[in-house]
């Protein structure tokens, strides 16, 4: 278990104070994988490095297990090498002067193990990441994906209390990234290690985590289960950052519990307001995912619809990605793979009120 409380980090540059992290708190339950997600400069990597001990926070506490590793107010700081963590770096940081097994076994040094024991445990860790057959290969002769696996084995081998991942997949090509994403998830479930995972790639975050924490400008914007954060974002920033969405401006007309009605240029749209904090008359953005839009006219109390002209349709294999111009606004939607792709023809779209989110105008 990892608990971060009121974490703050400021950097002093020439004539200004940069707030890299402002008051960040969250918890990672035992065996859970929590992703810190956000655009570059949002403070996610700095947060991770504070947990690792590679950065000293300027305020707050961090506990790993039942031990406080940092408590700025109490003046406590346990250096990184005594925190019993494993870490996988963005650049892998595989030591080029050692071969594969030496890289992994190094993490067992200083524990009073015999050479044979060290080798055996390292082999076991390499086996977990399917690298045992390359144990004696020199590190510089590994591909990116292989270095990645060695880095994971090295982080795992000492059975640390928690694993930290700093954008571990960002240097891999798209296909390998997809594969490794699934494999990391499988591995994490198999070993059940508490993990903190930093990434700027929202699809990676959704695929891999138990919880996603979205950060912006050094603060947490939102945290939730991947499905919730994708389907029920509570802010325009989240809706835009995670996945693709259409935003339609409007004004809140009426409210019935969490169900609200919004006046927009497309008429009255019915949707869900997740925060319950917006008042009638407020300026809002209606967020609808492209895949929630369906072609064809439909009516009903819980169905919204709009119509426009097809402007551009791109065949993308399993679906057609389309842009529809409706009342001067561009609406993105996914059509069936065999949809009519001729530009200019009129098209009606409908979407369920359940897929229609009403969010405060940023």
């Amino acid at each position, binding site marked *: 278990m990892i608990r971060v409380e009121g974490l703050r980090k400021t950097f002093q540059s020439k004539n200004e104070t940069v707030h890299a992290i402002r008051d960040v708190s969250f918890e990672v339950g035992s065996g859970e994988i929590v992703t810190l997600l956000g655009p570059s400069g949002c403070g996610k990597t700095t947060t991770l490095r504070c947990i*690792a*001990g*590679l950065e000293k926070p300027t305020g707050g506490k961090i506990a790993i297990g039942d031990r406080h590793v940092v408590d700025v107010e109490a003046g406590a700081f346990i*250096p*990184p*090498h*005594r925190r*019993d*963590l*494993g*870490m996988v*770096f*963005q*650049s*892998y*940081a*595989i*030591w*080029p*002067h050692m071969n594969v097994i030496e890289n992994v076994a*190094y*993490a067992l*040094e*200083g*524990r009073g193990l015999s050479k044979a024991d060290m080798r055996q445990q390292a082999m076991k860790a390499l086996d977990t990441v399917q690298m045992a057959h390359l144990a004696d290969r020199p*590190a*510089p002769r590994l591909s990116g994906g292989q*270095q990645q696996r060695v*880095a994971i084995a*090295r*982080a795992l081998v*000492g059975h640390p209390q928690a694993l*930290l991942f700093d954008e571990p997949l960002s*240097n891999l090509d798209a296909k390998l990234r997809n594969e490794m994403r699934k494999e990391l998830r499988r591995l994490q479930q198999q070993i059940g290690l508490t993990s903190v995972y930093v990434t700027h790639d929202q699809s990676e975050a959704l695929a891999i985590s138990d919880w996603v924490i979205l950060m912006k400008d050094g603060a947490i914007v939102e945290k939730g289960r991947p499905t919730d954060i994708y389907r029920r974002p509570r802010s325009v920033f989240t809706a835009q950052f995670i996945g693709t969405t259409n935003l339609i401006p409007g004004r809140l007309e009426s409210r019935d519990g969490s169900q609200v009605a919004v006046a927009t240029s497309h008429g009255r749209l019915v949707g869900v307001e997740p925060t319950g904090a917006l008042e009638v008359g407020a300026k809002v953005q209606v967020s609808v995912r492209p895949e929630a839009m369906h072609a064809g006219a439909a009516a009903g109390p819980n169905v919204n619809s709009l119509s426009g002209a097809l402007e551009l349709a791109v065949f993308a294999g399993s679906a057609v990605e389309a842009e529809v111009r409706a009342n001067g606004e561009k609406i993105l939607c996914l059509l069936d793979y065999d949809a009519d792709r001729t530009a200019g023809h009129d098209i009606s779209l409908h979407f369920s009120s359940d897929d229609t989110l009403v969010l405060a105008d940023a």
Partner: protein
Amino acid sequence: MAMSDTTPAPRASARAASGFRLDWRTIVLVLLVLGLAYQVVIPFVMIIWTSLKTVRPGDPEFLSLTVTFANYARAFGSSGFWAATWNTLSFATASTLAAFIVGAFIAWVVERTDTPLAKLIGMILIGRIIIPGILITISWILIASPNIGILNQFINQMFGVRNFFNIYTFWGMVWVQSIEMVPLTYLLLSASFQAMDPRLEEASTMTGAGNWRTLRRISLPLALPAALAALMLLFVTSIETFEVPLLMGGRAGIRVFSTEIFFNTSRTPIDWGLSATYSVAMLSVCIALLFVYFRLLRHGERYQTVTGKDFRPRRIELGRWKYLTSALALLIVFIITGIPLLMMIYVSLLGFYQAPSWAAVQSMSLDNYRTLFSSASAMMPMLNSTILGIATATAVVLVVSLIAYFVHKTQIRGRKLLDYLAFAPIAIPSVILGSTFLWFYLLVPVPVIGTLTIIGLAYLTKYLPFALRFVSNSMMQIHPELDEAAQVAGVPWWRNFFKVTLPLLKPGLLAAWFWVMVHAYRELTVALMLARSENRTAAVLIFDFWDRGSFMQISAFGVLMFSLLLVLVLISHWIGKRYGIQDQH
């Protein structure tokens, strides 16, 4: 690329044009290879041939095909040869180790710790490069030689001990030589310290390793190839060094290869054969060491597994110790850069040489400078050095950018040969380079002896390898697609070279130009070997003054020399900036 094969050329006229371009490229390549062969191969041939002959170059017998090993027998049979070998190797070893320790300390302080004033420390050290080596040697002689040395005079006054220091000893020579090489050490090591990915050390920390194990198992082994390579290069540099053995070796009784070659060539009775034999021995050692050096360098480059990420090396927090490291590093760079500079300025203002005192201060005047300015024989060499510096730098940079273009940006056959030819001179010690150019032009009826041309030609050979490294590095960073885009657009290669490649190369070219200009301006060894009365350079004039014992004139001239060099550097830097050239540093 292989342009004529792969460039789509649907029309017949385009195909013809591409064939024509290829021809011109080949002609330029052939001319370059021939020019380089002339400049580079001849020195090697001359050394070996002369070592196999008992007559001087120019003698009709010299060109006959009969060879003899008499010189080798004479050299190997003499105790002088083995004494010189021992002296050369022991002097080089001691100087290398001392320079390495000091240079590594400063590079570590500047690049890897949070020591205050680190940037300033690095800058002062690099600034030292504009002070000619001979002036550094002379200023240390003025400080610590018996009788006249300022330090000895102080100690005599304070403690009544006469000649406490004697710079004319083995360790005196090592002291001056290692001080001379510290900036080079710093340059070599700071580059590799900067190239080190801090994540490699952090990864070790995260496995639970403390600072000590991280240092011992990760940091040091990673730095090892770069450190060994630096040691090799320092060793070669101190084997071929000339100024220190020339000015101090005589009185210290330490004769090394470079001075033996110089004395056998330039003082009667001239012993060509013996000189060439020493040269062959010296050349063999240098080639062997450089071979190891390049092996290590390749090894080191292989170590850099992940590149392209921008990172700053992890700086160790020294706590209160940082003030100590700062003070120590400042003291060292003051000894290296400040003391020679201050000595020169101080002595240049004196009427006669004396230790600093109130009386000395009162007697200060600008008379020495007045004398210099009114003497044409003093101003001529200064002009010569300026011309040589600028002309050599320009010529070298032009040649080198063509070489780099062919080697890295074309697939023409024979381009590798260019690379090897241009790199070979790095093995030739200056003293040998100077003497071979002299011998060769004694043989061929080209009247260049006694002109600046012969020195310029020798410099061209000498500075090729260094300039090529600067330019090759930036050439490799230019993506081949830029060149291919121009080819597909139908731009002739020479236009592409001038319009696309050269402008992109500007930072590398500028760095190479500065480096060659500064070094050619202050160079002594080659110029001294080739000096006659009309083509003396500034550094040669200093040596002449030294022979006559006029310290005050030397100092005034030295101050003028590095002031002028500073002005040259500033002007060219300004020109470079004005024309939008971005400096890499």
